[in-house]
């Protein structure tokens, strides 16, 4: 197993690559979507939360990830002894109508396939995605973690419908028609996911790129009056069963899975790791379940993280673990210190477990 660090778009520089190397990482998971684009100012470095207006403005639909920018990132990471294990998330500008089943769907699917090929050409083995209409919406931020450290959580369901022009918690159209996102049933959304995987998985497989699905965050049956796909651990199996392609993989988020109201995180990990479906792991801890959970420091939540590491090892998992989120420490370097704490803990867990019989 390898230790990795997730970096947002604005963190893709030598300073952050160096920090990852110092903390003992050998891999990076990078975000190319600028969640903060033209958004109201918020915590400088941390994960985006945003209100009912979502995060920021989606990117340029006509500007696909170029092979050059991907290769440049891989080369720069290599100078720090790091590999890029995955790109996390498509820009909603690139697949808004794939999610909504809109008029540009066919064109956008072609764009996604082009980008998947380029990612493969650059030698990046995975793209993480979150097939969702409302996206990561409805979370709050506060002094929820140990010692009053700032963390993220939910405080009840959020049902306000998504306004037109917004998809995946970002704005894709500055001048939308008035009104809200048209209704969509759960079956319809599963069918849209199936359309996406049917189009993308053959290209992904051919390009040596896994497509790794993040569970819904927060994992509620509906968020902002839109359906969700994977809001219980068992629903990951439904996604896997859509396609036997080895490129059909999971972006296995322990935090989101533990926030779900059913299931058992250890049994789920055993099952999905044994099926060789975990592309990479989001390693974070949490207290509570939806609609009332809070993210915690890695040692301070309800998940026995060492037990998870031992299950992953026993089932032959050899991929990357990243701390996807960490509480912000009250000090001059809140994001770095919070991540450093999680990375130190994870490094020790890996060193300890790897020498066990």
């Amino acid at each position, binding site marked *: 197993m390898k230790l990795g660090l997730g970096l947002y778009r604005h963190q893709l520089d030598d300073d952050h690559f160096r920090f990852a190397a110092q903390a003992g990482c050998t891999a990076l998971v990078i975000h190319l979507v600028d969640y903060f684009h033209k958004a109201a100012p918020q915590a400088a470095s941390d994960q985006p939360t945003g209100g009912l207006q979502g995060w920021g403005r989606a990117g340029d639909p006509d500007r696909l990830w170029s092979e050059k920018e991907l290769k440049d990132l891989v080369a720069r990471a290599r100078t720090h002894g790091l590999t890029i294990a995955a790109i996390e998330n498509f820009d909603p500008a690139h697949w808004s109508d794939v999610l909504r089943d809109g008029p540009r769907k066919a064109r956008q699917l072609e764009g996604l396939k082009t980008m998947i090929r380029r990612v493969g050409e650059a030698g990046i083995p995975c793209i993480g995605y979150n097939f969702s209409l409302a996206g990561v919406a409805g979370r709050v931020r506060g002094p929820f973690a140990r010692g009053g450290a700032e963390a993220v959580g939910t405080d009840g369901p959020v049902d306000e419908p998504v306004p037109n022009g917004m998809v995946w918690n970002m704005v894709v159209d500055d001048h939308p028609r008035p009104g809200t996102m048209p209704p969509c049933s759960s079956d319809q959304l599963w069918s849209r996911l199936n359309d996406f995987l049917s189009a993308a998985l053959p290209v992904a497989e051919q390009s040596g790129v896994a497509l790794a699905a993040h569970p819904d965050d927060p994992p509620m049956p509906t968020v902002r009056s839109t359906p969700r796909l994977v809001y219980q651990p068992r629903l990951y199996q439904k996604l896997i069963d859509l396609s036997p392609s080895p490129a059909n993989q999971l972006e296995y988020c322990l935090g989101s899975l533990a926030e779900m109201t059913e299931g058992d995180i250890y049994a789920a990990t055993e099952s999905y790791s044994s099926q060789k479906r975990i592309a990479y792991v989001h390693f974070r801890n949490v207290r509570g379940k939806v609609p009332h959970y809070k993210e915690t420091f890695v040692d301070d939540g309800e998940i026995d993280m060492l037990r998870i590491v031992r299950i992953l090892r026993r089932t032959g998992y050899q991929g990357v673990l990243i701390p996807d989120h960490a509480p912000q420490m009250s*000090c001059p*370097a809140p994001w770095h210190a919070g991540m450093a704490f999680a*990375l*130190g803990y994870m490094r*020790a867990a890996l060193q300890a477990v790897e*020498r066990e019989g």
Partner: protein
Amino acid sequence: MKFIPNTPENVIRSDGKIGRRDLLVRAASLSVGVAASRALLNLSARAADGIAGPALTAGAARVMRVTLRPPDLSDDSLIALKQIGVDDVEVYTFDVPGYAESGQLDDAQLRPIQQRIEGHGMRIGTIILDQRALANLLLGKPDGERDLDKMSRTIECMGRASIPVLMYSLLVSRAILNTLGKPLPGMHRDPLGRGGAVLSNFDAARARTVTEEPAGRISAEEMWSRIERFARRCVPVADQAKVHLALHPDDPPVSPYWGVTQVLNSLDSFKRFLDFAPSPYNGLLFCQGTIQEAGIDLVEYVRTFGPAGKIAHAEFRGVRGNARRYEETFMDDGDVNLAPVVQALHETGYTGLLEVAHVPHLKRDPGERIVDAWSVGFLKGLIAAAAR
């Protein structure tokens, strides 16, 4: 802290304070830590009671915990420690007002600090004795007796405050460093770590180029006699006060060093020391870094002294190399996997503190919060793995 020389190892920060890291480089050998309650296999019930003062027994789980010395004792620094799950704070004697002038701890000056720390739901887990405290004794000067008196008063003060562990060293090199202001021979800091991290490092050949002997030449016999004098005088005081003394081994573990024959660097030497004054309160500081540099098997060390309850405190760092030449790395990046060492501590009933000792230095890491957070996380990960 004006007495601390501005040497490569003892850089004074731009704010005029001494970096904790730098302080510990010198004091490392001196580092003191906390030993808390533990299953004392071979010790009397009285001793077991004595290890846990009221502050520790009040709901404190009898498990290994992580400690470190914060950059300062401000509320902000304490809160940052609390957030990463450190409830046992390490306090340096110079952090206590009045100590610089009197050379001993005082109840009235210690109490407000202790109360403020406890107000954050934390406690003083250990106190580090300053490294010039025994300088007269170690340098063979006439005032040695006064040093022993003052240290005794400090121990008694800690006993009244129920602070369980005093970390100290008997290093002539640190007495020279802190009284004569000369840099430690052979010690250096260079960007040798991953990602350009600056690591403290030692080269014995470089140390030998320093030919002066500021303390004169001290033989093994003379060194042992000074050490024995200390033990016979101060251990009974600790015994009475129920404060665990944690003796730091030689650092660096080479001999001779600066003209001095260093003698506290082998399993046999530690046994000899403990035999001078047998007491449950006469204990060792398991400085994993220097023990590793000395070529002693770490698990063997723990299995030798752990079951008898002789490890009063433990501190950790990564080490690449040996006493001839070594560098202090991130804890996962040294020559030895530390997981079996923490496992052995757990198995031999150690329930005291694991201290983040020396850390690599990163750019843009004010107060070393980032590297401290990483290191605390690392030790917590090892503790979690050991407790399976």
